[in-house]
């Protein structure tokens, strides 16, 4: 009998929870923020992201919170499925009563959430998805993005490529939207500056299904002067290994989009490529005091070093807190108005959410890779301000049909 009662109570509690009654007792002194990310699909990226976000929330709360209230992060796993993310977003807004949502890593999940935000008039701050369409072609009033987009990072590399004498370029990129966007943007910016370059081969391995030996052979056969690499993760490791063995990188300029990010560079250990020009995150060498204290706090809290995801997670929460402060409330329309043109200081410098397209001006670091103490590092790097790598306002207006 006793067990039956327990079982019954549990069932009722669960049912109540599902029906949204379990959250009736929302504490009035907290502001909830919904966090949706692919915590199981690519944990190597999303766990540092969450750690960064949690650290920021704790720091903000320790100094009194926002508008006199504590922030609370409600994290959920979207399984890497857009449909799942939409369902969770609905639950976060209607059952958990979050003020806004943020997060996501995959572009398609981010795009689905952006579409949802526009339809339901709810605020979504895309943290990591890189797709250009998120703020341009498919942009809407209720979607903002923090991380520098594919276009911005590709433009940073193209600027350097244009200064190099290399004329014959090869590209290798995973065969999906991010890879295609990254190649298209790089080509566009480079061709504008250097009409004389030609692209002699384009390789499109399936994402995480690279046949590295064959790809390297195919690029080698085209005899390029320089190679532009967009592969990452396991594909990058295989490409680097086969390319190094087969001599593809010898006496060639190799550029790597995101290759310098610790998420991708560190697993390569002492086999990290040397002399590649990459975008990335040299957290170990950034002397700025705000960044130094961020690294210290992060290492103390998590006993691990920060990845780019950690920084993005941290900056995302700082942005949200700043927006709520500026808006003076958690009303969605007030928050959206506050986000437009919102400026704040972050460990990576000042960041502004452009009113024209809702893209933040957070930049990226561009440098050259080397191996030090059996680890890949970036040297001779410089921080590139994101605002300088976006198309002109007139062009952005054409790219972004949304008027608001």
């Amino acid at each position, binding site marked *: 009998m006793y067990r039956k009662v327990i079982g019954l109570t549990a069932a009722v509690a669960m049912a109540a929870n599902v029906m949204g009654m379990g959250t009736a007792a929302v504490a009035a002194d907290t502001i909830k923020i919904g966090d949706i990310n692919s915590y199981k699909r690519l*944990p*190597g990226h999303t766990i540092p992201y969450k750690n960064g976000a949690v650290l920021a929330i704790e720091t903000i709360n320790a100094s009194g919170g926002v508008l006199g209230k504590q922030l609370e992060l409600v994290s959920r796993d979207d399984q*890497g499925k857009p449909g799942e993310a939409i369902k969770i977003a609905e639950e976060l807004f209607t059952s958990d009563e979050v003020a806004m949502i943020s997060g996501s890593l995959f572009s398609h999940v981010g795009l689905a959430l952006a579409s949802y935000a526009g339809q339901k008039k709810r605020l979504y701050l895309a943290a990591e998805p890189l797709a250009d369409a998120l703020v341009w072609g498919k942009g809407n009033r209720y979607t903002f993005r923090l991380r520098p987009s594919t276009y911005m990072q590709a433009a940073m590399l193209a600027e350097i490529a244009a200064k190099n004498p290399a004329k014959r370029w090869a590209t290798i990129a995973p065969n999906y939207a991010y890879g295609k966007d990254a190649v298209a943007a790089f080509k566009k910016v480079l061709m504008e500056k250097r009409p004389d370059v030609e692209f002699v081969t384009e390789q499109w391995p399936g994402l995480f299904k690279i046949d590295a030996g064959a790809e390297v052979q195919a690029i080698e056969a085209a005899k390029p002067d320089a190679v532009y690499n967009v592969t990452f993760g396991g594909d990058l490791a295989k490409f680097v290994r086969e390319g190094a063995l087969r001599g593809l990188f010898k006496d060639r300029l190799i550029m790597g989009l995101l290759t310098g990010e610790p998420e991708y560079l560190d697993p390569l250990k002492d086999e990290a490529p040397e002399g590649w020009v990459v975008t990335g995150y040299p957290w170990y060498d950034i002397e700025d005091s705000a960044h130094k204290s961020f690294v210290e706090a992060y290492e103390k809290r998590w006993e691990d070093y920060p990845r780019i995801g950690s920084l993005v997670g941290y900056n995302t929460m700082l942005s949200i807190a700043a927006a709520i402060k500026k808006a003076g409330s958690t009303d969605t329309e007030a928050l959206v108005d506050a986000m437009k043109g919102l400026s704040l200081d972050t460990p990576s410098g000042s960041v502004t959410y452009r009113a024209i397209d809702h893209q933040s001006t957070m930049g990226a670091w561009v440098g050259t890779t080397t191996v030090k103490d059996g680890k890949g590092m970036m040297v001779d790097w410089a921080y590139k301000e994101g605002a300088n790598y976006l198309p002109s306002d007139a062009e952005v207006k054409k790219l972004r049909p949304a008027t608001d």
Partner: protein
Amino acid sequence: MDFFVVQILTGLANAAALFLVASGLSIIFGVTRVVNFSHGSFYMLGAYIAYSLMTVLPGFIGFWASILLTGVAVGLIGLIVELGVLRPIYKSPELFQLVATFGVILVIQDLTLLIWGPDDLIGKRSPGFEGVVKIGDQLLPAYDLVLIFLSFLVLGGLWYLFNKTRAGILVRAATQDREMVGALGVNQSWLFSGVFFLGSALAGIGGAAQLPKGGADLLMDFNILAPVFVVVVIGGMGSIPGAFVAALIISELNVFGVQLLPQSTLVLMFVVMAVVLIFRPWGLFGRPEIVGSHGSQGPPEAPLRAFSGRLWLVLAACALALAVVPLFGGNFLQVLLADVIIACLFATSLHFILGLGGLVSFGHAATFGGGAYAAALMVQYAETPMELALLLAPLAAGLLALVIGWFCVRLSGVYFAMLTLAFAQVVWSIAFQWSEVTGGDDGILGIWPSAWASSTTAYYYLVLALGIGGITTLLFMAYTPFGYALRGSRDSALRSEAIGINVRLVQWSAFIFAGMMSGLSGALFVFAKGSIFPTELEIARSFDALIIVFLGGVQSLFGPLAGGVVFTLLQDWLSRFEYWRLCLGLMIIAIVILLPNGLVGVGHWVRGRFGRNADPLSDAEEEAA
């Protein structure tokens, strides 16, 4: 010339790892008839375990000892899975075991994350073979040659095992006629366990041997699964030389495909598989399945009982209960239930061909995504109103099913399943690759319901009406002459032909009808979510439907409903926990072992305890008894 030699050798080296994994799967399937989805997980475990072993065992000997030890370790893990998970359910309906292996995938995914952490691991290079070999002016990694040698070694070893040893000859005999081998006094359980050990060990060795060319990451399991199944099917299920030749073909085509047509890499192998299956339905080295030789192991299925009036009453009560939900339930409950109804309709449409028709489709996502994409494209390009799109989407999906079905219904059993999978992958790659029209993996966005249905509650009622309508139609069809003909064709194609039923035509029609209903669920899905991406056409989507149907109980009309409700709610609830995949996997395994006939088996249990009339729903599946 040198270039071609190096290309061919590169292809051979790629074929090696593929062959090792595929041969293991082929042996397991050939003898046990278990479609082992978790084979990719054993491959992944092999990579991780070998990585750890290689960090403690240094040098040349350490490297090769690690690979061998990994084989043993993964073989033992496979043995545990066989003994603990599969043995209790060998007597279940055919292919039921794949649900259990799906549970194993989830468990291994989370355990691997727990043990080895989230970061990608790059494999150690093979001591002594770090360098390159010069062939003319071309360079080839020395380890490629080692891999090629290894694959021939394993091929030779397996040939010896299966032709020169008693155990191997028994395995071959069991591949051809398992019952006869049993009748001759061979201990089948011993044979099954041994085969599982060997097959898993080969997968583990495959994972270990590819380390010097790559590494270990958490997506390996699913990434290897599709190519391995393709290889096994092209070669012929159960054939070792077939797996070898097929691995070679796929790898070489890939190598030259990269060279000539770089965009082709996504879909090439599925096109090859489709072509092979259309012209040689049993694969290159397989043999035709003799009717009845590999049928269900359990007792034959009894006919479905007629629908009693009481049962209709219960269904109406359920619909009524769902209809009053918006009066007290919040927004999220409605959204969640809409998901459940869509999943139930999707699964019921699969059950129509799978349960009633005996046609196990591994590619049901094609029509789900097909319907969803059709609706989205109509809205996007023709500004079609939602009402019309919901009407036309099932027709478009039906048209797709008409084409796919025309090729597929000539096949049966696992080959039918694999051909549907191949077509689903082709459809997926069209949606993925043709980005000018479909938006590629950035999908089609902004597909929301018409104004009158845009509130959560209004759309919930729409899903409820169309979902229940679709499900009822599917249930009703089971009792029409068409449904009887379909069931007859499943039970005995020969006798059905003899009484004048055109079996192929009936199956084809059923495939189209199921495709239409699946397309309807896809269209409802797209308006519920507002966007559509190629992920909805992925293998995982097809698996969802399979899991639901088998979990619910394939022999009952209500299986997919029970499965849809339980699976969707379970997943939604568990995904709140950090290690939800572990929990979900263990729960699936537990359900499968405790209820070997699926969830509807609960009905029997309830009746057993509370007397006959406690649960009218269970009447319909009493036929199984």
